[in-house]
């Protein structure tokens, strides 16, 4: 019966409490709630336990005092439970909001990254264009066209966030052609894409850093240069992307060159949780094989 009173007070709090609290201070609002809840509780208790709506109102007053006592305890119990549930919900909400924030922060960072083209690369390319203008105007023209392609698609990707394998390959060709203009015979490359993969969508900036690494840390430091081979294919239910170079390879004690790789790893974690992997292996007789494996649903 006391529980009935407690429950009723609580219900009253929930139903009209907030409205009352807008009109008067919190402690005053409690009074009508207790009165209404108490009365309802007595009526409810009477009808449920004794089958008589007015049972507790024609009994002697001791029952009422007792009922008030237990009613208050009942109220405290219910109130506590409701607060606990509210608090839990709040904590969960905050955690969710925090996670969302972190995701957004990462996304914004990536956009910034995409928008940047490495300044060294840009200056080098422009120096080469200047160098070719008199002696090789067609080469200068080509390089500027490739640079424009690269800049445009970098901007577009900053807006869209996704591109197809085909788009990505176009971009890589523009990049590699520019590098070939610089290095000429020292660099050769080939790109092999399985036809089923061509139209798959792919998050940008996964493949490009691997190719940049192959050039900057593999082929460029090699006096005789080398070759970059890019393979994109399905293997069972995975999309496999390999960037293979026969350059100088990774020096165990070399300066840290892993900023690009670090970014790729972070992106894989954000985009695919633990379902995607980046492997680095030594190529024989020298060079590096970088291999990306992504879960893929063939479309």
């Amino acid at each position, binding site marked *: 019966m006391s529980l009935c009173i407690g429950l009723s007070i609580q219900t009253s709090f929930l139903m009209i409490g907030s409205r009352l609290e807008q009109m008067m201070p919190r402690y005053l609002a409690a009074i009508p709630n207790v009165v209404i809840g108490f009365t309802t509780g007595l009526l409810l208790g009477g009808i449920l336990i004794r089958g008589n709506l007015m049972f507790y109102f024609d009994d002697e007053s001791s029952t009422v005092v007792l009922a008030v006592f237990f009613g208050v305890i009942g109220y405290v119990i219910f109130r506590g439970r409701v607060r606990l549930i509210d608090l839990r919900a709040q904590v969960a909400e905050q955690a969710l909001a925090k996670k969302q924030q972190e995701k957004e922060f990462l996304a914004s960072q990536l956009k910034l990254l995409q928008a940047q083209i490495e300044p060294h690369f840009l200056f080098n390319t422009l120096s080469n264009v200047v*160098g070719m203008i008199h002696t090789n105007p067609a080469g200068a023209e080509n390089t500027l066209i490739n640079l424009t392609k690269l800049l445009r698609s970098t901007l577009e990707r900053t807006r869209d966030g996704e591109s197809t394998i085909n788009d990505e390959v176009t971009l890589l060709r523009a990049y590699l052609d520019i590098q070939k203009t610089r290095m000429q015979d020292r660099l050769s490359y080939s790109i092999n894409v399985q036809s089923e993969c061509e139209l798959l969508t792919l998050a940008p900036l996964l493949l490009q850093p691997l190719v940049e690494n192959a050039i900057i840390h593999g082929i460029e430091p090699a006096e005789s240069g080398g070759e970059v081979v890019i393979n994109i294919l399905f293997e069972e239910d995975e999309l496999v992307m390999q960037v293979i170079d026969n350059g100088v390879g*990774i020096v165990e004690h070399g*300066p840290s060159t892993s900023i690009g790789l670090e970014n790729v790893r972070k992106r894989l974690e954000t985009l695919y949780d633990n379902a995607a992997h980046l492997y680095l292996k030594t190529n024989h007789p020298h060079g590096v094989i970088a291999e990306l494996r992504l879960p893929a649903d063939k479309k």
Partner: protein
Amino acid sequence: MTTAILVDDEPNLLSYLDLKLRECWPELDIIGHAANGLEALVLVKKRQPDIIFLDIRMPGQSGLVVAEKLPKDIRVVFVTAYDQYAVDAFQKAAVDYLLKPVTVDRLKITIERLKAAPIEQPSADLKALMAAIKEPEAFVLKWIKAGSGEVTELVNVDDVVFFKSEQKYTVLFTKTHEHLIRKSISELVDELDPDTFWQIHRGVIVNAREILNAKKDFRGRYQLNLKSRSEVLRTSPSYSHLFRQM
């Protein structure tokens, strides 16, 4: 007649410098081009030029390394794509330098200087220049070759959670994988960055960034819980001091 050789690994930049030099200094006799440090040294020996225009970033030996090996009576002009920060270093070291792409105005200044003092070489402090320009040489281990036979996987040390010796080998644990490697724990201790990798036991090195917490047991040793692996690592008494203040 004053003679010069030009050294750059990028053919377009080499031919452009050649073109501009001929325009601005027709009397200069350009007697050869080289595409890397080794070729440059061979060419210098063979032709003994008065002046060398030397690119800094090249495959193989850098231009700075080449400059150190040159006879003292050759005047060196560095040609570089480095930025303003490095330009300060060039000025301090009293070497002549040109920024790529070479502009005619700037080239003329260099030519005037070369004509004014054809033989005298300013006391260039190449060692200081090398120290200033080169990224700090990292002698710490960055990559570990794991596995054996045909294919070796490369593991970045930052991905390592801990190393543990197991009989003759060392096992390397990353978040998700385990690799057998040939380097011993004592070799690794010498080569790894000591700020990040802590030896906590004769046979265990842990990546300090991967330690979640350290709990002291009743014998005064510590038990380490890791952030991304479930193994619990025990310290031996001689390494416990690492965790006293944690």
